[in-house]
């Protein structure tokens, strides 16, 4: 412990004359009572100039997906976007590929010879269509609304204050809504406290992905993504083609078994092709849920509703005689065409664009999490600054009772800090804040199991998540600490380095005296 402190001390007080710039990483091992830590040093570069300059002058600029504030995973340099929990998606993929693979390997040769070679061809087409639409649904942006820039957020707050008056009763002001009349129906637009915008009609905040999504249908764990405006048609095509594929495989495997059992007997036929038995079982259990789901979504498309609206009964006549769906075009055909063949809007979040230094960054979420990477858009970042931040972070984590007044500074998603999976911090050590990285590396080890994953047996039974009405997504702070949603974490300002220095020193002194 004392060695570590000395190491931090050395890092902090690197004399200006020293030419090497040190970069250090550290890891925290959870569950070990003594909080043993390793400190690794790796020298980046030697420079004759002052170490306050970044060693990587031509440091590559960050892409927007790297500083994306939502809880998404990005792959292929931002081209692929998925939710954080993708385990069930892989299960879906495995089930489809294995079942189809078994069908093509064991049943198709017999069927092609006995009946017609068109069977494997049609099966192949269906299978590729299913895979294509599944991947398209899972990998595309569902229609995420980017969060408001600080200027926008401030402007909205001002307007809301003018509208509500300046009375502030209670800890949190009442939920903010705006009423709008659409085709004769009064629709309430809710204010999203996380994204700091008034949600457009039909948009909703997905608590799992922590994004507002346009025309939010539901979050589908089987697909590993939200289903929204931009990928609803792919989702529908997926479940429709999967229904056809399931029925197709089921029917032809049964045919195969029946034809074989005419020659050999039922039990011999089953013994000869055990794969067929597996396929029948999988298909039998899948067909009910998938066909049911396809039927349900066909109804939704025909009436131009989202799953969300249907579950809530937003346009149900039970609410009132005058209640009707203002978005419906009147007839089923137009509704279907609009949903499936309408124009496909482009992604609003520009994942692969570069973060420009003068671009206004979105306002940080007010649930006590600072997007460090989003604010620190300057390309020059001194490693000494990182040193100071890491030190501050560790001091905070280790000596919270001593440093209760300090605000934890969240680390940027920086390539020079590879240990960020550990930086998530154990819940017990960080009552003040849970740092959430802008990218999706699963770093919160104490995350509770998602409720939707408790239904693995029922394929196609979607966990219909009603959109989060609360200002901040409930249960997303894994240790459930209500951090005071009005906490606005201070941005790290390079100009306040000196104060950080002082704080760190103070912290060090306190620690060393323990």
């Amino acid at each position, binding site marked *: 412990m004392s060695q570590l402190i000395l190491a931090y001390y050395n890092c902090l007080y690197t004399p200006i004359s020293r030419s090497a710039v040190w970069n250090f990483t550290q890891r925290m091992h959870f569950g070990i009572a003594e909080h043993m830590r390793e400190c690794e040093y790796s020298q980046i570069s030697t420079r004759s100039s002052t170490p306050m300059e970044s060693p990587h002058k031509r440091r590559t600029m960050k892409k927007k997906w790297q500083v994306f504030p939502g809880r998404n995973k990005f792959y292929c340099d931002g081209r692929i976007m998925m939710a954080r929990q993708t385990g069930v998606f892989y299960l879906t993929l495995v089930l489809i590929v294995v079942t189809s693979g078994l069908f093509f390997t064991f049943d198709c040769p017999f069927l092609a010879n006995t009946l017609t070679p068109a069977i494997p061809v049609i099966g192949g087409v269906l299978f590729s269509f299913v895979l294509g639409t599944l991947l398209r649904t899972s990998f595309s942006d569902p229609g995420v609304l980017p969060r408001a820039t600080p200027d926008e957020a401030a402007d909205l707050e001002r307007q809301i204050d003018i509208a509500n008056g300046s009375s502030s009763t209670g800890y949190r002001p009442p939920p903010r809504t705006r009423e709008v009349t659409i085709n004769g129906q009064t629709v309430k637009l809710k204010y999203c406290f996380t994204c700091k915008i008034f949600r457009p009609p039909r948009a909703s905040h997905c608590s799992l992905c922590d994004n507002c999504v346009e025309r939010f249908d539901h979050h589908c764990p089987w697909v590993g993504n939200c289903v929204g405006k931009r990928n609803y048609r792919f989702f529908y095509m997926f479940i429709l083609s999967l229904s056809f594929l399931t029925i197709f495989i089921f029917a032809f495997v049964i045919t195969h078994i029946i034809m074989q059992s005419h020659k050999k007997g039922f039990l011999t036929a089953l013994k000869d092709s055990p794969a067929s038995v597996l396929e029948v079982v999988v298909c039998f259990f899948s067909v009910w849920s998938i066909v049911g789901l396809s039927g349900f979504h066909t109804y939704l498309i025909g009436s131009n509703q989202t799953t969300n609206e249907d579950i809530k009964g937003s346009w149900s006549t039970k609410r009132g005689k005058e209640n009707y769906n203002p978005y419906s075009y009147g007839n089923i055909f137009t509704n279907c065409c609009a949903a499936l*063949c309408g124009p496909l809007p482009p992604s609003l979040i520009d994942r692969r664009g570069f973060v420009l230094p003068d671009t206004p960054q979105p306002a940080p979420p007010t649930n006590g999490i600072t997007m460090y990477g989003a604010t620190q858009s300057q390309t020059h970042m001194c490693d000494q600054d990182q040193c100071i931040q890491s030190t501050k972070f560790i001091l905070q984590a280790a000596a919270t009772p001593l440093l209760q007044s300090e605000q934890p500074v969240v680390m940027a998603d920086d390539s020079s800090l590879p240990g960020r999976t550990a930086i998530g911090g154990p819940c017990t050590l960080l009552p003040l804040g849970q740092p959430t990285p802008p990218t999706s590396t699963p770093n919160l080890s104490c995350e509770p199991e998602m409720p939707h994953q408790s239904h693995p047996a029922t394929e196609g039974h979607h966990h219909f998540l009603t959109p989060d009405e609360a200002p901040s997504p409930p249960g997303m702070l894994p240790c459930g600490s209500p951090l005071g949603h009005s906490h606005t974490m201070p941005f790290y300002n390079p100009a306040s380095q000196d104060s950080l220095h002082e704080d760190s020193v103070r912290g060090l002194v306190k620690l060393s005296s323990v």
Partner: protein
Amino acid sequence: MATLFHNLQDLRHTASLATKVFIQRDYSEGTLCRFHTKFPAELDSRIERTLFEETIKTLNNYYAEAEKIGGRSYLEGCLACASAYIIFLCMETRYEKVLKKISTYIQEQNEKIYAPRGLLITDPIERGMRVIEISIFEDRSSSESSSSSSTTSSSSAR
């Protein structure tokens, strides 16, 4: 204040950002992209009402064109579905084409109308299609006395 800026370059070099005005989305016709045409009070002394409304109406028309559901969009949708959406690797969607037109239009408006009046419109796509952001610039090169006198005169005028 009647300071003239000759072009966008002048604007950026000599001006400092005073404030921003946000034109919000108008949802009265559903989820289609439309912006309010109401003239904001902050722009009262800066630009003529008719020019502003003209710009917003043209933008609204462009967005309506992009989101129009008709024969052409159906054809595009069906063709894309039939080709398993591979066609979008080679071809731009109609929406994207219209967005490019909008960008060109906004740039042209900025150069001809807004920059000479010390204003700058930001393309809504850069703000997630939530708002049209109009930045109001003050001329930095003008002395403090002139800006303070203008504020006192404007406050006395109200």
